[in-house]
């Protein structure tokens, strides 16, 4: 048993894992077991938008100054897929966020519009509306609107490559398109000049908030509409159990541990060092990928990254912030070993002994069969409808 978890949490976790008393269990789990969040039963919504969610998904948080509407979401879908939004017109958001990969790109590290290699791997966007912080390790980025300034305007690395010299020209491309004029007018009624960067960002953020993934085999199982295979069932029990302890960081309805929603009051934003590196035994991670340390310069923050949601994890390879683990089987090996031991090269060091490693990541006695079963369970988190939902697809293909 894990002495760190209060008995109440352990019991509820089992209730969740078993699919019994699910809603109540989740509500208490989220509220009482370290998440610091609170699930509410009534779902605030505006007249303009209705969320369609599994019963155990809380109502998403939407900023007061960017309410949802169907025209805004649809405009955001066009902008998300439009390469005209980059400085040189060569790259759209979707260039690094492919729908068939849950909106990541399959690369170890992504490549920006000017060819610059990004130090990190593009993140998937499934259920991104619930992320309390955005990107891999940035406690200061807490809204999708602010996050978007990084890919649009960032200089190190250049992603979309919009800058002071071309930002008006990029907007002019949109103004010159009569279709966009109509779409911006519909999305931002009453505004005399709706085509501008604030509204571009608001529309894309609204589209991103609709990227809800809650129809995997596991979701249908929770709703009594599907049966898990014997291997998936064993994997589920290991995942939520005290042996593998995956749930500590991946235990919410969204299979991560940083959740914000409409009813959130206090939101905790944990970041974790999982022992991926330990250069020269100093605890160091390779620059410029040292996690929260890059922002805070605090030793304890070395190698701390946000635990990503594991929904659709089957299609989001390669794994980790720098894409250095290629398969789910290898991810399981990595966690079973309690870290990664790199024996040669510039990053040599025993990550298992990283002094800043989370105390939740330890040597686990997981047989090969155990690991294979957990992988099978993780594959049951793939929402195949989400990966081809026409509401999220590239609208320019069909035009």
């Amino acid at each position: 048993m894990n002495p760190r978890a209060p008995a109440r949490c352990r019991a509820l976790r089992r209730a969740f894992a078993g699919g019994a008393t699910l809603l109540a269990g989740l509500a208490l789990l989220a509220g009482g077991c370290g998440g610091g969040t609170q699930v509410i039963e009534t779902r605030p919504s505006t007249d303009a938008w209705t969320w369609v969610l599994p019963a155990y998904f809380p109502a998403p948080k939407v900023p007061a100054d960017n309410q949802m509407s169907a025209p805004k979401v649809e405009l955001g879908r066009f902008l998300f897929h439009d390469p005209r939004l980059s400085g040189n017109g060569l790259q759209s958001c979707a260039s690094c966020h492919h729908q068939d990969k849950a909106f990541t790109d399959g690369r170890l590290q992504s490549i920006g519009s000017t060819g610059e290699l990004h130090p990190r791997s593009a993140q998937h966007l499934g259920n991104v509306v619930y992320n309390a912080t955005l990107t891999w390790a940035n406690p200061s980025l807490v809204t999708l609107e602010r996050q978007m300034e990084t890919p649009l305007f960032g200089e190190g690395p250049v992603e979309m490559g919009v800058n002071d010299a071309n930002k008006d020209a990029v907007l002019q491309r949109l103004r010159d398109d009569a279709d966009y004029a109509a779409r911006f007018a519909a999305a931002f009624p009453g505004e005399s000049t709706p085509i501008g960067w604030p509204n571009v960002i608001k529309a894309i953020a609204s589209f991103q908030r609709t990227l809800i993934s809650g129809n995997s085999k596991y979701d249908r199982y929770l709703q009594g509409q599907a049966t898990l295979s014997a291997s998936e069932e064993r994997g589920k029990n290991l995942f939520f159990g005290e042996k593998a302890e995956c749930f500590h960081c991946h235990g919410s309805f969204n299979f991560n541990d940083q959740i914000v929603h409409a009813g959130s009051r206090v939101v905790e934003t944990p970041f974790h060092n999982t022992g991926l590196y330990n250069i020269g035994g100093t605890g160091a991670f390779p620059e410029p990928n040292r996690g929260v340390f890059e922002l805070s310069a605090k030793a304890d923050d070395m190698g701390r990254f946000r635990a990503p949601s594991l929904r659709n994890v089957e299609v989001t390879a390669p794994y980790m912030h720098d894409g250095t683990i290629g398969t789910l089987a290898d991810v399981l090996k990595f966690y079973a070993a309690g870290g990664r031991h790199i024996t040669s090269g510039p990053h040599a060091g025993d990550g298992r002994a990283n002094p800043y490693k989370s105390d939740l990541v330890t040597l686990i006695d997981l047989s090969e069969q155990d690991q294979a079963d957990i992988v099978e369970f993780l594959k049951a988190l793939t929402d195949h409808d989400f990966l081809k939902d026409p509401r999220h697809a590239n609208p320019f293909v069909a035009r």
Partner: protein
Amino acid sequence: MQIHSLTHLTLAAMAAAALTACGGGGDDDGPKAVTLEFAAYAGATPVKCGTAVAGLGSGAVEAQIKDFRFYVSGVQLIKADGSKVPLTLGANDDWNLTSGSNAVTLIDLEDGTGSCAGTGTAATNAVVKGTVPAGDYVGVELTMGVPFAFNHSDYATATKPLDIQGMAWSWQSGRKFAKIEVTDPAGVAGTWTAKTFNFHLGSTGCTGNPASGETVSCSTPNRMGFHFHAFDPTTQKIAVDLKALLAGTDITKNVAGAPGCMSGGTDPECLKVFEALAIDWKADGSGTGLPIDEGHAQTLFRAVAK
């Protein structure tokens, strides 16, 4: 007739108000206009984009300026008795913003020519202009930085001069307080192993509140306070000394951290740079980011004759 006299009264009141607003028409008791001028220097030599600058860094190498912009706030004039009076900026415009009790000015000493063409802009601004109440002032105190209340606003929606993308710092959801960059004068054919030495000053260790969607605090403010006990803006200007900023740092290579000094708490290229700023920085990341002794020992800014 009552209407007529009311009109007279109103006109008289308006005239009085107009006189007050215009500074009393030369009356010595009215507000006093102040212009603080900045200029880019390397040591005693004025420098600009497009002309190689000699003698920079520990190797005394030649470099081209790539950017030279910074925000100034918290300007106060100092009286002989040591008391301080805030400067009231002029109307909000491309370079100045006052909102509530906060004010900021963007100083832009690059003109977008030469190596500044990549990121710079043609427009420039070398001055902070404002007014103070009548009185005798002997010195001036300033901050290089953006007030916290302004620093974390959205770039996309922000009011001028906080809307400059080049000064945005999405890394910490804030702004670069200063963006001063020098580059290898021989370009790709040159011998610098890191082609550009970037100095970006800004608050670090920032965290947001996901429940409110706002940035709530930064552990390391990195706002540079500096002052001149004796400063006459009519005969003097403020030199921004590139040579002092880069003194003791090898600007041709990057030992670790971001290329140059981007305020990283453990970036070795920040050690000497922060000494020049007189901001508390320590190699182990434990620096407070606060001015040391009110910036007395800073070497970046210097009063020189106009």
